[in-house]
């Protein structure tokens, strides 16, 4: 038997994203709407960065949210944050879209370098004031320029490590190592374990 006042106290605390996903898993559309409002700008921002084309970015973002709705029961809060789960889905879908349209439009690899230089400027400029963004900025700064470049091209550019190697004219084995060493350094910096 629940004590009534306890329930009202609980109601005052805004639900965490993890709780929201649990509610979404049970078909709660209101919870889904709250979750959408909370995370859509972050998801759309990421998708726009990778996909670039506005119409395609909207398409991908819609797919991401349909996936969240459909697969909410698969999310397990013991295994990671809700936001990480959502961003993994968003990034993978964005990358899939970029690679699919790449096949039809033959994306110019040279363009990648320019995009990277622009996008890296963005990182430095737009992260002010936000805790996570600040941490990411610091962590990126702790990498060698070569590691930053390889990681940014892969993550923000949506390029495969093979394509990154072609862009930078170095063997793919070198790129793999740059990416892995850089990511390990970021992990240790950011205390992810």
């Amino acid at each position, binding site marked *: 038997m629940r004590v009534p006042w306890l329930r009202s106290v609980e109601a005052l605390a805004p639900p965490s994203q993890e709780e929201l996903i649990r509610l979404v898993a049970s*078909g709660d*559309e209101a919870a889904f709407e709250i979750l*959408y409002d909370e995370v*859509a*700008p*972050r998801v*759309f*921002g*990421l998708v726009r*960065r990778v996909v670039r084309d506005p119409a395609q970015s*909207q398409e991908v*973002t*819609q797919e991401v949210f*349909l*996936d969240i*709705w*459909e*697969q*909410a*029961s*698969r*999310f*397990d809060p*013991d*295994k*990671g944050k809700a936001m*990480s*789960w959502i*961003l*993994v889905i*968003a*990034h*993978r*879908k964005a*990358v899939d879209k970029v690679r699919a349209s790449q096949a039809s439009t033959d994306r110019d690899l040279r363009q990648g370098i320019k995009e990277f230089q622009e996008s890296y400027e*963005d990182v430095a400029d*737009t*992260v002010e004031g936000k805790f*996570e963004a600040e941490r990411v*900025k610091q962590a*990126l700064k702790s990498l060698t320029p070569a590691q930053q470049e390889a*990681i940014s091209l*892969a*993550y*923000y550019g*949506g390029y*495969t490590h*093979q394509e*990154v190697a072609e862009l930078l004219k170095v063997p793919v084995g070198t790129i*793999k190592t740059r*990416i*892995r*060493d*850089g*990511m*390990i350094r*970021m*992990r240790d910096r*950011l205390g*992810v374990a």
Partner: protein
Amino acid sequence: MDKQLHLNTGSYALDALDNQERIEFEEFAITDEQTSQEARELTETATLLAYGTDEQAPPAQLKADVMAAIRNKRQLSNSSTVLDISSGKRHGSHSSAPNTATRSRWLPALSAAAALAVFAGAAGWVVGQNSTDTDLQKRLVALESNQASAAAQQEAMLGIVSASDAKIATTEMSDGASVTVASSTTANRAAVMVKGMPELPADKTYELWFISAEGAVPAGVMPNPGSPTPGMQVLDGKLDGATHVGITIEPAGGSTAPTTKPLMVQAL
């Protein structure tokens, strides 16, 4: 290790592997605790890179579209979280081995891809209808005859395929291997045929599982595939309400509960 797959953890985390590479990596990672752990951590790290982009509100119309679309979109039920059998609670007991907890944390990194793979497989289900029963039966018997093994297996097999509610589905794995699962609720049995599964080191084995919301029940280990010919095997034990059949890689001799992510999970 020719391909140095363990060096791909960073590229994996950044989604910088092509499809073929990703599958190879995932298959390797589930056999290697250290690699899977590193891939999981780097994936978590990679999600932080998303915070290096500008937040941007999508157009209001997008929200309206999404809210309208979910009303027509079926959700996966809780019982379909079968990929998570490595931490599956069995009979309400919470005494799962501590080291399975680490292993199961690997899942969020894989969930998007793994979920897609599983459901692509499930979409391949063909329900055994009268018109296809004969084909099915021929196919199974033909496959089965490749193994001159036990008459009991043959009998169980025929029991499955001759049942009016026999179902068969083939999951094609990306590396060319295929797994066909046949089952019948009436016969209360299931069988698998595998083709082209990679050979495992001597200290590992493929193990079959009956999976339900309760968890995974061992259904026998598979002989290490040494030939490209299909191997047929009736699962040990009864269906008894299982909703899925899965295959994992386990230490030689098999485990009593799965310790790795399934290579394949097929809905029944």
